[in-house]
């Protein structure tokens, strides 16, 4: 199979940024050719497919390092197949799935099951993240060696924090010998007893609030433990300005910390909860305008390395209930790129920075292959940054529709997604 992606702006931050043609043979990139440059690896007339990328960006495949696929256990919300289809439509070539499935992914069996299911679909790559503690119970290490050998690329108790600081210290220390990245859901549970952000909106609506400090206290602890153990730590879904200040300070000290945020934190504020919209309920909660601004600035200055969706499918059973009782989380795979492009449109990030946050950095943090190079895997995303469309969750690929962005008008999306030279999504 030979494919040429013709006439696009090939953008691999720090390496390539020019109008070029990408030549693909089977699963590999065999040529990246500028006009009048080196001879192509094969003649255009021998190509099986020529994809016109005029006016489009050809990017390394996007990577979402924080996704809940719900399988095994909650297939009524999402399956590996539906999650993969949503990911492909969103421009992602690799996604990393969190271990809070039923059963929990704390074993090679579950890890292998997920990988096996995904491979059978020959589409977006799925990299499981294993449980940091056995059964996510927070009282014993899970077997990182076995998890890594089975294909896990990180460990976390995501969905809840590792509250025991001694255990968290051991998690970090032990992970070092295995060479697997620790991802922290940083939350001080005794302070986090609200159902939304603490502040005026919560007060007006009579909903209990969780203060910013519930996050930043734990971010600071995790930074201290990363420093103590000289072990890298990745902070998931950063939402507050205080956490950002702590991470910025830690990076300046040379402490090995990286961080991600989610599109909703740079797009929305807690005002979106009004009036009792359970599609604006997630953990950490949507914050104040000042926090949203701080998140944007932290993306721009590099304090936050990555954009990850925290794609969290839930059915109406969990969302069409009183706000207090609603489950946390929203889907995000199909809107992440469009929301990211809004940052470019607003001048917050350059296109190159956006691709760093959505492709290069997540791959680097978790040690996945990435980038556009000759001889490398043909994982790439063709982005049409001018296409205007209205997002309609009911027409999406995810099995769930829990999103506050339903009906939003967007400009820019994935035109075409290729994984190992296979077209897995195309408009």
């Amino acid at each position, binding site marked *: 199979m030979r494919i040429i992606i013709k006439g696009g702006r090939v953008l691999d931050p720090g390496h390539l940024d020019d109008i070029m043609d990408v030549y693909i043979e089977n699963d590999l990139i065999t040529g990246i050719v500028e006009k009048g440059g080196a001879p192509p690896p094969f003649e255009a007339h021998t190509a099986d497919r020529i994809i016109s990328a005029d006016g489009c960006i050809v990017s390394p495949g996007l990577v979402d390092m924080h996704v809940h696929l719900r399988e095994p256990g909650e297939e009524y919300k999402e399956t590996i197949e539906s999650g993969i289809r949503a990911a492909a439509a969103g421009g992602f070539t690799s996604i990393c799935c969190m271990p809070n499935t039923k059963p929990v992914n704390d074993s090679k069996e579950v890890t292998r099951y997920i990988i096996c299911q995904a491979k059978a679909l020959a589409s977006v790559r799925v990299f499981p993240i294993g449980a940091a503690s056995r059964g996510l119970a927070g009282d014993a290490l899970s077997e990182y060696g076995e998890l890594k050998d089975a294909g896990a690329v990180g460990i976390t108790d995501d969905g809840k924090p590792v509250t025991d600081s001694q255990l968290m210290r051991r998690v970090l220390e032990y992970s070092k010998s295995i060479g697997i990245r620790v991802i922290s859901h940083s939350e001080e549970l005794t302070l986090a007893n609200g159902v939304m952000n*603490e*502040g*005026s*909106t*919560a*007060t*007006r*609506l*009579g*909903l*209990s*609030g969780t*203060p910013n400090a519930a996050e930043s206290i734990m971010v600071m602890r995790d930074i201290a433990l990363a420093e103590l153990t000289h072990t890298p730590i990745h902070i998931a879904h950063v939402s507050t300005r205080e956490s950002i200040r702590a991470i910025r300070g830690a990076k300046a000290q040379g402490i090995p910390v990286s961080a991600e945020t989610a599109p909703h934190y740079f797009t929305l504020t807690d005002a979106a909860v009004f*009036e*009792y919209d359970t599609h604006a309920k997630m953990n950490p909660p949507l914050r104040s305008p000042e926090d949203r601004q701080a998140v944007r600035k932290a993306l721009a200055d590099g304090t936050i390395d990555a954009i990850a969706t925290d794609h969290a499918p839930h059915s109406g*059973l969990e969302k*069409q*209930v*009183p*706000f*207090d*009782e609603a489950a946390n989380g929203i889907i995000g795979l199909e809107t992440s790129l469009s929301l990211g492009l809004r940052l470019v449109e607003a001048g917050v990030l350059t296109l190159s920075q956006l691709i760093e946050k959505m492709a290069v950095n997540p791959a680097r943090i978790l040690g996945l292959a990435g980038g556009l190079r000759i001889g490398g895997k043909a994982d790439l995303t063709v982005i049409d940054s001018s296409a205007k469309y209205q997002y309609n969750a009911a027409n999406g690929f995810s099995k769930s529709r829990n999103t506050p962005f339903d009906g939003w008008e967007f400009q820019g999306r994935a035109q075409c997604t290729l994984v190992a030279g296979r077209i897995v999504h195309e408009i």
Partner: protein
Amino acid sequence: MGLLKKDILDVDSLSIDEIQTILDTADGLKEISSRPIKKVPTLRGKTVILFFHEPSTRTRMSFDIAAKRLSADSIAITAGTSSMVKGETLIDTAKNLEAMAPDIIVMRHSAAGAPYLLAKTVSAGIINAGDGMHAHPTQALLDMMTVREEKGQIAGLRIAIIGDIAHSRVARSNVAGFTKMGAEVRLAGPPTMIPQGVDTLGAYATYDMDEAIEGADVVMMLRIQKERQRSFLFPSEREYAARYGLNRERLKIAEKDVLIMHPGPLNRGVEIAPDVADGPYSMILDQVANGVALRMALLYLLGGGVRNADHH
């Protein structure tokens, strides 16, 4: 005369005119409760469901009596007796209620916003009888009725509300109602009981009780919930009573003819001294009596007013 609204979910969404209409109607209906035969046929053939998902004696009984005095058929279901204990979702319960064609559903729920969900699901009128910490519009309306009855008008009065503002739906609805009608509201309580972003409610907040009640025309005390001690909101009832309890000595700085109000049930000797609760300025039992009239007014306006007439 009537309301164009389908539901009464909060005070914020009522206009000044609507509040006046409700209070005027309640004033007019109050007399029925002092007749030897305390019943009029106004809502005969109407069905009112009292859907109480949280324990309540006073409010539920008040609505029940109000419905019966207007000849409506009222049926009470509570969390313990509804199939919600069997795992049915709120929306499914609501659809089942709807299928039995009630005209009005009076709802109390422990979750803020639950009546909004119900209002979106069913075509019957919904009256919010208290949702979590959010709103208790009928309490605020009956409080406004009581104050207006005594003082002639609400505009220009100074109202003090003392206690656990953060967790009080009564406080939220009263701030919304009294400020809308032109009164000045001051809130007081310990910092642990003043919510973040309290300004958004439209009232001045202070930690100093005396500052709030100085020159007040109305002092409204909120019930202190003993279980809040467990969430570290106050150290003991003793210290709370000393710093935020209402007693005769404290009242000296209020206006001479100050009204003392309390939504009940009382913790005598904690937030309110017994002699103040039983004293000449106490409106506490008038509030209860007016509660029936006010709820009759709402049932009448939603169940038999303009909206209903339009359907015939």
